[in-house]
């Protein structure tokens, strides 16, 4: 039973981590996050469904087109809901991104419908047995892609010029601007990137969660919890926290009952916030007064 629960938690936890990585990128560069990240995941799944299943495109072009669309969405979110409020140091971006998420959800209900639809994947048809526990091969794909993306994001941040620009912006907007970095554009790129990550998550999760207008709501929330626990500025921390959170959830549900699952999960968030406000793997930032 424990092995089965760990596998369940692993798949779920990597889903949360995938979503949470998107929070990491924008927070690091602009101290803002897209609170509609869960809905971006949904948009990714819905667009991919529309192209791949609806319009009958081959898989690869569907994925590329979806990711392109999501990058555009990210730029749009930043332009409409974040940039206007950055200068004034207000947190109106928080409400604005939530509002965009609600709009996205309702547009999806109008155009796509509220019925859950199946996204075919040959890896999610039949369960296989691993270590005595049943698992859909597709579920194993989620942690693999999650870790790969994390490594990719970290490498890109460290090794590429654009990545360094992102980090410089993260470090200090004014200093970066003095160095000739276009801060506004860099933040825009961070949003596009974060949105693309959400798109990847959407496509990857669609066969497991089914495609529906509301599929991203809980994911977005749990993803944010994971980002807080792991330390929103640490990609590695997020992946570890995501997987741990998923496994704790599954084990609590399995042994104590589903009723207490959310209580324990979110109590954990509060505890971490109390003990380590910067997250389990984050670094405490010295407050400049």
């Amino acid at each position, binding site marked *: *039973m424990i092995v*089965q*629960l760990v596998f*369940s938690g692993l*798949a*779920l936890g990597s*889903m949360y981590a995938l979503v949470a990585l998107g929070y990491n990128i924008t927070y690091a560069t602009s101290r803002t996050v897209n609170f509609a990240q869960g809905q971006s995941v949904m948009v990714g799944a819905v667009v991919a469904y529309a192209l791949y299943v609806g319009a009958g495109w081959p898989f690869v072009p569907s994925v590329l087109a979806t990711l392109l669309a999501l990058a555009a969405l990210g730029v749009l979110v930043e332009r409409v809901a974040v940039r206007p409020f950055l200068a004034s140091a207000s947190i109106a971006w928080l409400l604005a991104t939530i509002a965009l998420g609600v709009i996205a959800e309702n547009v999806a*209900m109008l155009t796509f*419908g*509220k*019925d*859950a*639809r*199946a996204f075919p994947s040959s890896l999610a*048809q039949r*369960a296989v*047995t691993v270590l005595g*526990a*049943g*698992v*859909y091969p597709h579920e194993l794909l989620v942690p693999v892609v999650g870790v790969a993306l994390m490594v990719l994001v970290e490498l890109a941040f460290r090794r590429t010029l654009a990545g360094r620009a992102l980090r410089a912006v993260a470090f200090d907007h004014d200093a970066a601007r003095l160095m000739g970095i276009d801060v506004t554009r860099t933040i825009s790129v961070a949003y596009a990137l974060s949105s693309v990550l959400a798109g990847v998550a959407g496509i990857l999760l669609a066969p*497991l*969660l*089914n495609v*529906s207008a*509301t*599929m991203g*709501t*809980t994911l977005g929330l749990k993803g944010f919890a994971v980002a807080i626990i792991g330390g929103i500025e640490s990609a590695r921390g997020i992946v570890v926290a995501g997987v741990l959170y998923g496994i704790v959830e*599954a084990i609590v*549900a*399995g042994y104590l*009952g*589903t*009723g207490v*699952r*959310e209580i324990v999960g979110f109590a954990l968030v509060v505890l971490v916030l109390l003990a380590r406000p910067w997250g389990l793997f984050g670094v405490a930032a010295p407050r400049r007064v």
Partner: protein
Amino acid sequence: MRRVTWLGLALLTLCLLGTQATVGFTQAKPPITVALVAAMSGGSALSGEAIKRGLSVAIDEINARGGLLSGRTLELVVRDEEGNPSKGVTGARDVIEREKAVAVFGGLHSPVGLAMLPVFHELKVPYVGTWAAATAITRNGRSPNFMFRVSANDDIVDHFLAKHVIEKLGKRKPGVILENTPWGASNQEGLTKWFDRLGARPVGFEKFNWGDPDMSPQLLRLRQGGADAIVMIANAPEGAQVVKSRAKIGWDVSTVSHWGISGGRFPELTGELSESVVFVQTYSFFGKQSDVGERVIAALKARFAVKGPEDILAPVGTANAYDAMHLVALAIEQAGAADGSKVRDALENLGEHRGLIKTYRRPFTPEEHDALTENDYILVTWRQGKIVPVTMK
């Protein structure tokens, strides 16, 4: 200038006279209005459309026969409650106070039906449910009771499911998995009661939330508890996750379900696993049909994009609504007036009626406001994405 004004006035008078004349003509035989307040958009839009189709087919038949109360035609007005109880209340008031509806049909959502209940009692117009199954809609302790139903009732469904598990399948240790909502709670109550009366005790009641992606922890708990059958209270998306998780943990166990899973795209979401679940319906358009059934299918084919029974989506909505409309028509005729209170009284005293689902001996009595009983429920499953009676496999 003056001449033009006079001409204009004359013309206006003529027009007014003209409209007066037509108004006068229609006033001789004003139509009788009935209303549908149901979810016509959103996730349950399919159910609202199915109910509207059933009502429309029945109304066409009645109007083709010359209407009711010597020549008054029936007219349907529809309000969308979007699954939102307060919109249901507004809609119910609107159709009764402004549209003068003499009876209001209800849709899939139990919370909406329960929220509208006081409105019908205040305005004295009968509600006839065609889908929502919450026990308390009809069994509400009011007298006179304005709530009627031609659909399933959770309490009766729970008895039906419990009996099937214990008597037909011969299982003694059922495990229940249900959604964490008032609907789930209503069924937990019913199942606890009926399993207890049948001398069995469920090994557990496991709950899930809407949108939960993985139900294996809940199922593992039931399996650990020694469950030998699963009773499932779920709508299509979560029901699909339950069945997929069950296959994942390699648990081959009889699964019986309430009818929530028939309101969405369960077969699409689960593939061949859909064939491993049996569930409740009030009617099936598959198999041998009575002449009423043939007539309804023919009418659906003629009016809507329906080629055969497989295109009748959410079939219980259509079947329940069709019978409900005919029963209301009989009551209006018997009451002799388009008056809500009189129609209500008549509904309790109708005679025999040959309907689609069955021949109703006495559809409603002052004590029993559910026209369908356990004997009218059928057990069905999916075969290649179509709902078929279990006996036909």
